[in-house]
Every structure is written in C-alpha cells, then in structure tokens.
C-alpha cells in the first residue's frame, strides 16, 4: 500500500511549495489520494520554506507530516532541519549544487542531485525544483509517472507561465535520468 509522506524544503524563492503542488496534482491524476500543505507555522518571516505532500492509496488522515518518508532539500538549512526527522529506511534527495556538507544519516537512502547545475545546463536558473522532482520520480516511480507530471505542469501552473514548461519538462527528465 502506497503511503509516502514527503517534505520539500528550501529557500523562499526555490519553488518548493509549487514543486510539492505539482507532484500532488500528478499523483491525483493517477487516482491517488493526495494532500499538500505549506508550512505556515512558527517561522513567520525569512528562514526556510517547506511543504508536506502525502500520496497514498487510502484516505489521508493528516496532511501534517512530522516524520517524512521522503525529503527533498534544496538548501543547507533545510538539510540541517529535516535530515534528523526522516523515518528510518526513508529517502533523502539533496541539492548538491547548493549544499556543501554531506548528509550524516546512514539508515536512510541518500541521493545527491546537483539540481541547480542540472537546471542551469538546460537553460534555466529557476528550475532546480524540477530537477529534484525528476530525481524523485525515478527513485519512487509509484508516486506518479513522468506523463502525469507533464499534465500537472499544464494544469497546475497558470497559463502565462506555460511558456516555461518545455524547459521544466526537460529539466525533470534530466533529473530523472540523473538517478541510475
């Protein structure tokens, strides 16, 4: 039974909230139960931004995720904050373009993905979040297919931003391919 509790975390501008939302939409398209909630708790201003996405076969009890099964962290403060919270046996994908230290947990599977580099080498300075999603879909193919993600990109993003989608799709694919 699928039941993944995913946290996307990074700086405000890194698009973690929308990455989470797109993933949720993709999974929803495949008939899964999904929820998405941005952190809006203690930290009012500055600091890290993050969101929690739950994707499951059964109805979701709580959208709040205390102990994620999967973490995608795009900057170092987020790594510091969430690495300790990941469930044993869980997955950590981290953005090695922006994070200098190595994760320390050994009871989880860690994927190092140079998200910004992947994004930039495909012509965008803003699609690091897409690279992370691509990697995630490879690591956890049950969450959603690449096709559903493409659909999500068109349904979940406002029309005037569709122009970025070809690059987004490209970056997702590259992120996907990066994992092997």
């Amino acid at each position, binding site marked *: 039974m699928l039941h993944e509790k995913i946290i996307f975390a990074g700086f405000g501008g890194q698009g973690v909230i929308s990455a989470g939302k797109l993933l949720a939409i993709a999974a929803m398209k495949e008939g899964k139960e999904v929820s998405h909630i941005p952190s809006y708790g203690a*930290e*009012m*201003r*500055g*600091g890290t931004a993050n969101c929690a996405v739950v994707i499951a076969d059964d109805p979701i009890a709580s959208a709040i995720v205390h102990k994620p099964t999967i973490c995608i962290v795009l900057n170092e403060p987020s790594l510091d904050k969430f690495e300790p919270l990941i469930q044993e046996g869980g997955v950590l994908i981290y953005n090695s373009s922006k994070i200098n230290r190595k994760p320390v947990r050994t009871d989880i599977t860690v994927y190092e993905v140079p998200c910004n580099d992947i994004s930039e080498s495909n012509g965008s300075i803003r699609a690091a979040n897409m690279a992370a999603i691509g990697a995630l879909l490879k690591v956890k193919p049950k969450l959603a297919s690449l096709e559903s993600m493409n659909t999500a990109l068109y349904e979940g993003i406002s029309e005037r931003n569709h122009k970025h989608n070809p690059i987004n799709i490209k970056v997702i694919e590259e992120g996907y391919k990066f994992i092997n």
Partner: protein
Amino acid sequence: MSNEEIVYKKSPSMMERETHYCPGCTHGVVHKLIAESLDELGVEDAIVVAPVGCAVLIYDYMKLDGVEAAHGRAPAVATGIKRVLSDKIVISYQGDGDLLAIGLGETIHAANRGENITVIFVNNAIYGMTGGQMAPTTMPGQKTTTSQSGRMADDVGLPIRACELINTLEKPVYIERVSCHNGANILKAKKAIKKALLNQKEGKGYSFVEVLATCPTNWGLTPKKAYDWLEDTMIPYYPLGNFRDQEV
C-alpha cells in the same frame, strides 16, 4: 589598539538576539532608533506595547518591559499602563493595519485624550505579517494580495494620512512624519523619535511619530528598490515634516 574608538555600535538597549525580520526590513531600523533614543535619554525602564503585526516580538529584541496588545488596541493598552505607571515611559509601536484600520478608534481617542505616551507608527503601506494585503496606507495603484489589480481609489478610497488626521485634534503636543529610507532620513527619524520620548519624559503629553518604512518582501522589491519606491511614491503623498511641536 588604543588609538581605536568605537563610534557606532549596537545600542545597549538592544538584545543580542537576531530579529525575525526579512532582509532589509526597516522595522529593525526603527527598533534601533528607539533603543538609541532611550539610551541617550537615560531611560532604562520603558515599557513597550507591541502591536499585532510583524513587530509583535519587539519586546524580544529590546531590554525593556513588554506588553503585547491585541490587534489595534495598543493605544488602549498603553493608556491602561500609563494611567497606573505615570512615571514610566510607555511606547505604543504600531503598523499601519494596526493603527489605522482595526485600531483607528483607539488611535484617535488616545491622541484626543492627550495620553502622555509616545506612539511610533511604522507605515509600510501594507499588511506585512499576514502576507501583503492592502492597508489603509496602501498607495493608489499598488498591488497587494487583496488589491491584485492595484488599489482602486474609486472603490476603496485613497490612503489615509495619519499625521494630518491626528493634527485635527487639540491635545497632541508633537506630530511628525519622517522616513527611514536612507541614512540621512534615518538620522532625522532618530531626532523625531527622541524628541517624542523626551516629551513624554517631561510630562508634556501625547507625541506621534509616523515613520515611512519599507516591506521589501510584500512589495516584491529588493530592499534598495523598496527605498526608491518609498521615496518616489510614498513621500509625495505623505509629505515629511513636523505637523505640530508645542514649543515651536
């Protein structure tokens, strides 16, 4: 090195703790002006009334007693405190939503009673804490999350000028509008804040200082561009200067 002298440093009234403010947020500037003024006036036991707004934690950043008021009620809370502790300096620190929207009644009435308090009004033309909604001081055309095509004066009116409003009342002794959008203005702002606190110390009565401020985050501008926007857009509508100074 004995031939070095520290000519500017963090005011002793400021705590070491870092603020939660966004980079370039001018709340930090106004905080330190208050702290410096208190230090220079030798006031060690001021009581600050915090608003509900981004500055809600001001008491965590300054070495003084702090009371957190409900949204908009800081002048009423300050009145309650000052009527008991008439020898303590009481500061009501408020944002534009707090002071001019929900708390307008308390603002005007505390001013009209001439409470011997100092009101520091941080006008950043937006609701900072709640994520950038329209404030009573939002500029015409300014886009906010609740005026997504820009503030339309036809529908929601024009920005309210606090100093001008309070200036219709008899009892306030000191009313001044300053800005904190660059060093020169910050220095002027400091003077006004210090004067407003001195007035209270001398028992003169109600003093009001409006500080034009920036909210880079919700304005969607860099701190520097926010400076420029303040200067180009706000100052023409909110003229700087003294509106009342009982001694003059």
